[in-house]
């Protein structure tokens, strides 16, 4: 199946209650698939094409506030528009699933794939101190699996979760194993607006605390939650790291290209491994720190001008050399140039 369509099917099967979206290339197949497959008839899931990304994310806020499994998807320029709503959702501590099928920027940019929204997703693209849990699929299969996982994590932590995919994963076709249809669940959360229960105070959802002392308490609670997430939810894949003298790191589609470069390097006798973060937040800090004691250098390969590389550097804290190789603006690196960068920047550098 095509990545975007498989993700849409996974949303129906994950028992999502509502999808609100707005068309944008290269992810419009998500809403097209949902509209064509009538999830309203299959599970009762609501699908609505909003008037803008801003409206869509606020519809997600409303539905999520009712304890429902709500989601939206977009691509980079559209994701920028959603940042206001995402900040409110994070502040009000509502669970929801966001999908960003990243394309090259800045501005209207290009419709070609990119990873240049790493900062926006991982560092909090909206205002205020908040974090999204960010999942980075490298295959269509992972995009499907992360829909289910994403909803689980969102409700576990009452926090927005983002699947940060890109135009490659969204547009390519791969074999995929779909999980069985999960039932939609009637919400029964004390934090959700379900209608006031008699003899209980009304529930309200807000991200506003006019008293600074109270707002600091909210922030303390959020930070404690983020520490918990950092402790529990780090995911990564390690390939050929046991005997590695050098390390590649890359995420998403770029990790697949880098893996090819790793195989080419191994064939030449260069002992290089690959560490692929599957969660961009929480970041595999400890794993990088451990490998920094072992390897002579790390090459971070990204389809951007150097974003994740900053987190790699913070993780290894000067213990080993960290360099970046990137193609951007919608360009995709090839394995030869990645291998060449390893030889020039790390081994020969």
């Amino acid at each position, binding site marked *: 199946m095509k990545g975007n369509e498989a993700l849409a099917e996974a949303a129906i099967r994950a028992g999502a209650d509502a999808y609100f979206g707005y068309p944008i290339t290269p992810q419009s197949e998500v809403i097209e698939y949902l509209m064509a497959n009538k999830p309203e008839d299959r599970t009762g899931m609501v699908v609505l094409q909003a*008037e803008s990304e801003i409206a869509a994310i606020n*519809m997600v806020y*409303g539905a999520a*506030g009712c304890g429902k499994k709500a989601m939206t998807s977009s691509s980079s320029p559209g994701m920028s528009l959603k940042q206001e709503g995402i900040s409110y959702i994070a502040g009000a501590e509502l669970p929801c699933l966001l999908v960003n099928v990243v394309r090259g920027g800045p501005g209207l940019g290009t419709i070609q794939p990119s990873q240049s929204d790493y900062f926006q997703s991982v560092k909090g693209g909206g205002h205020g101190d908040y974090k999204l849990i960010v999942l980075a699929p490298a295959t269509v299969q992972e995009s499907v699996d992360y829909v289910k996982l994403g909803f689980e994590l969102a409700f576990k932590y009452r926090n927005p979760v983002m699947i940060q995919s890109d135009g490659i994963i969204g547009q390519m076709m791969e074999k995929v194993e779909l999980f069985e249809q999960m039932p939609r669940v009637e919400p029964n959360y004390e934090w959700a607006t379900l209608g006031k229960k008699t003899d209980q105070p009304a529930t309200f*959802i807000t991200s506003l605390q006019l008293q600074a002392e109270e707002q600091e308490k909210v922030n303390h609670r959020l930070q404690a939650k983020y520490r918990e997430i950092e402790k529990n939810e780090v995911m990564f894949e390690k390939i050929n790291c046991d005997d590695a003298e050098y390390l590649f790191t890359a995420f998403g589609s770029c990790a697949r290209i880098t893996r090819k470069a790793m195989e080419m390097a191994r064939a030449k006798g260069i002992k290089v491994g690959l560490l692929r973060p599957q969660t961009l937040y929480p970041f595999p800090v400890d794993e990088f720190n451990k490998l920094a004691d072992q390897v002579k250098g790390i090459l971070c390969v990204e389809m951007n001008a150097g974003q994740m590389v900053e987190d790699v550097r913070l993780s290894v804290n000067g213990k080993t050399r960290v360099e970046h190789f990137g193609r951007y603006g919608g360009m995709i690196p090839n394995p030869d140039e990645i291998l060449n960068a390893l030889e020039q920047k790390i081994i020969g550098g």
Partner: protein
Amino acid sequence: MSENLIKPENLVYQKTEALTDRVMHYCPGCGHGTAHRILAEVIQEMGIMDQTIGVAPVGCSVLAYYYFNVDMQEAAHGRAPAVATGIKRVFPEKFVFTYQGDGDLAAIGTAETIHAINRGENILIVFVNNGIYGMTGGQMAPTTLVGMKSSTSPFGRDTKTMGSPLKITELIAQLPGAYFVTRQAVHKPGNVRKAKKAIRKALEYQKLDKGTCFVEIVSNCPSNWKMTPVQSNKWMEENMFPYYPLGDIKVPEDN
């Protein structure tokens, strides 16, 4: 104390359960308190306190969720109709309302307002229009009258550079999704009764899944108009009502 003074048989009016006991932050003489109250009274009278979800805006009524004794969500500035859409779509059987001011509804939230109504979202929108941004301290609103002074139009609203006051209610009444559109006021007992009746009608229509109902309440802002409450009501009658005439703008054809 009052229990001793007023015998139950003489009690003609009491506080509605659909409002909390929290002291409202609204300025003396402001119409918000009355507008809150009649909406809350209708909710209680219809027996739907447990089935109602409200959406508060950004503006003076940003803290409305402290006052209404029903489940509420606080929306980002202008986004209340989108938030209400999200709520109503997943809970079609609940009663959903937004409570918004003129800056929220008719400036930053114009797109959300028009499109929610154009989809005929089965919600009630209560639109309180006092022609000014109250919460932020009296800046020009989309509904500020021509020549009216505000902190961002200190020499009066000049239509050449600032546009004309937006009759958003007449505008949205054109949309097929709008089922019942009316403009009311709450500054005199007769108006309060009429406004309450309009809100009741709107929520009854929601029960019947008729589409968006829109109740504008033209109101005052003594603090930012820099008038006493009495003066502000008089000014409202003399200046606001001619431009924003009270009465029904769109009534159901099948009624």
